[in-house]
């Protein structure tokens, strides 16, 4: 039985929207790994934490989840800076295994705090200004997904601008390129690291508020998002938002098509098979240089 054209187009479009949101989720991780060389296995759990925070805020303020980013982004920047100072700084430059151990520990703490506080049942925000569909003939567009995709795209562009067109961005790129030379040139590497890690976590707060416009929070979404964002980075290769955007959208489309054509239960399996195979033949990623 062949699926109809409408269904395919709808599925691809949903995949593209999802992909844009994934790009915001992966952006912070990519910055932290690319600039600081820190392997953060708790990245997804920060998205999970943010989702619960947005759930509480949006329900108590009776407002749209996406607006909660005004609170989550600065708050998560501070949380990120604190986590950096207490936990990440001591393991800078240590072997991958130690970094993974420490960040898995952070993830465990966050995940089980959520489990103890909110239990395992999924939570969704009931109030949304964007919970309606726009009919475009062949396909119909969920407004919340469209808006979160568009906002994600703007933020990715904004971070790209920050990295390429400003002095701070230049300092960040210099640190990523060679931290010793950067520090000789008068860049305060410690401050840059604090800023980058804070920014990385702040982006998870943003991703969480966009996610909650149509998604649900449960203690385990962090694990899926964590692995998924790493897969996106592996496919995209480091250094460049275009690779990141492209690989996010590819993953989004693969996932969406798998759900439509095969089964929602294997929506992660197929992107992960692609990931493993790409890793074999192009360790630098699909869009990486080298």
């Amino acid at each position, binding site marked *: 039985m062949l699926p109809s054209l409408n269904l395919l187009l709808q599925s691809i479009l949903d995949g593209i929207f999802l992909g844009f949101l994934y790009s915001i989720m992966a952006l912070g991780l990519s910055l932290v790994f690319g600039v600081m060389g820190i392997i953060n296995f708790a990245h997804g759990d920060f998205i999970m934490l943010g989702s619960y925070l947005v759930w509480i805020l949006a329900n108590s303020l009776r407002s749209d989840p996406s607006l909660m980013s005004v609170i989550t982004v600065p708050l998560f920047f501070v949380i990120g800076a604190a986590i950096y100072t207490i936990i990440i700084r001591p393991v800078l430059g240590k072997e991958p295994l*130690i970094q*993974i151990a420490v960040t898995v520990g952070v993830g465990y703490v966050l*995940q*089980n705090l959520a489990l103890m506080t909110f239990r395992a049942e999924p939570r969704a925000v009931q109030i949304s200004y964007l919970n309606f569909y726009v009919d475009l003939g062949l396909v119909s567009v969920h407004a919340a997904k469209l808006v979160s995709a568009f906002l994600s795209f703007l933020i990715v562009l904004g971070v790209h601008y920050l990295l390429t067109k400003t002095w701070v961005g230049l300092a960040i790129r210099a640190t990523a390129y060679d931290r010793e030379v950067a520090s000789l040139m008068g860049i305060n590497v410690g401050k840059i690291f604090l800023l980058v890690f804070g920014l990385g976590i702040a982006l998870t707060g943003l991703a969480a508020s966009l996610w909650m416009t149509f998604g649900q929070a449960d203690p385990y979404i962090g*694990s899926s998002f964590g692995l998924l964002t*790493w897969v996106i980075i*592996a496919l995209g290769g480091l250094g460049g938002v275009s690779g990141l955007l492209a690989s996010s959208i590819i993953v989004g489309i693969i996932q969406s098509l798998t759900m439509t054509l095969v089964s929602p*239960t*294997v929506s992660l*399996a197929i992107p992960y098979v692609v990931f493993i195979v790409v890793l074999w033949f192009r360790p630098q990623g699909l869009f990486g240089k080298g």
Partner: protein
Amino acid sequence: MVAGASIPFLVGFNQYYILLALQSVIVASIALAWNIIGGYAGQLDLASFAYIGLGGILATMLMMEYNITPWAGMFLGAGISAALAFVIGYPLFRFGIRGVWYALSTAALVVILHEVSIMVLGPFDYYIPLLEGWYYLRFRTWENLYYFSLIVLAFVISLNLYISRSKVGYYLKAIREDEVAAEAVGIDIRKYKLLALMTYASILGFVGYIYIVSQRTFSYNTFSGPQSVYIAIIGIVGGLGSVSGVFTAAIILKIVEEYLRGYLGGALPGLHLLLFGVLLITVGILRPEGLSSLTDTLVKKVKTRIWGGVRE
């Protein structure tokens, strides 16, 4: 071993404690099998429950469907897990994938098997029918399975000790410390990493059946990502390559888990994992060598107390 074997007598054949001892011994065996790939060879493998699930479910299904004894099933399970390890490990090592990318590939493997098994097994729990006796390695009470698991543990411990003292063990440790240097002095790093991975996988494939029997049920959730991470955590907290450290960590963490569960009941689910998280952060920051280094220091201190400060 003698201490372990006497546990059922000490607890007066209380089934709750024997089951707890059985589960601790199984976790210790799994963590010590992980020690071969993770501890000696330094590859952060996060796929332990892929091999346990595959081998264990194969042996259990063969028993349930065709009445094949798990004595054969466990060896078949070991074989199929080793085959899976070869299929996944050969290209990974061939293409030089290591560090975080190795860890992620193995984590992805568990998710893939988890999702595929939902399609194959269906979204429900399987309960093992009430088959009893040595033919099924399944009994009304837990003692016999516990004794059998002790033998498995003894085998895994001796294998660890054998490896750590053999040529292969030195090769693996060299690979862990510096892969490029190990290759430069002529060690076939691909071959030895693959050997370590397949040894680890076949032990897990074998243990899978005992694990499933001790859990009384299996499902697609047997392919558990969090459980696989948990095994790696035991290996890291215990100390990479330290047999006594990993063994102690496995037993202590299991007892703490059970105690907190019994003590707080369902009031705070996940509290033990939260505490393990804190422990992991602390060990990672302060004692990257693992708990074994702590016991080593303690032993040294006690020795200097007894014999005076001249030894060193």
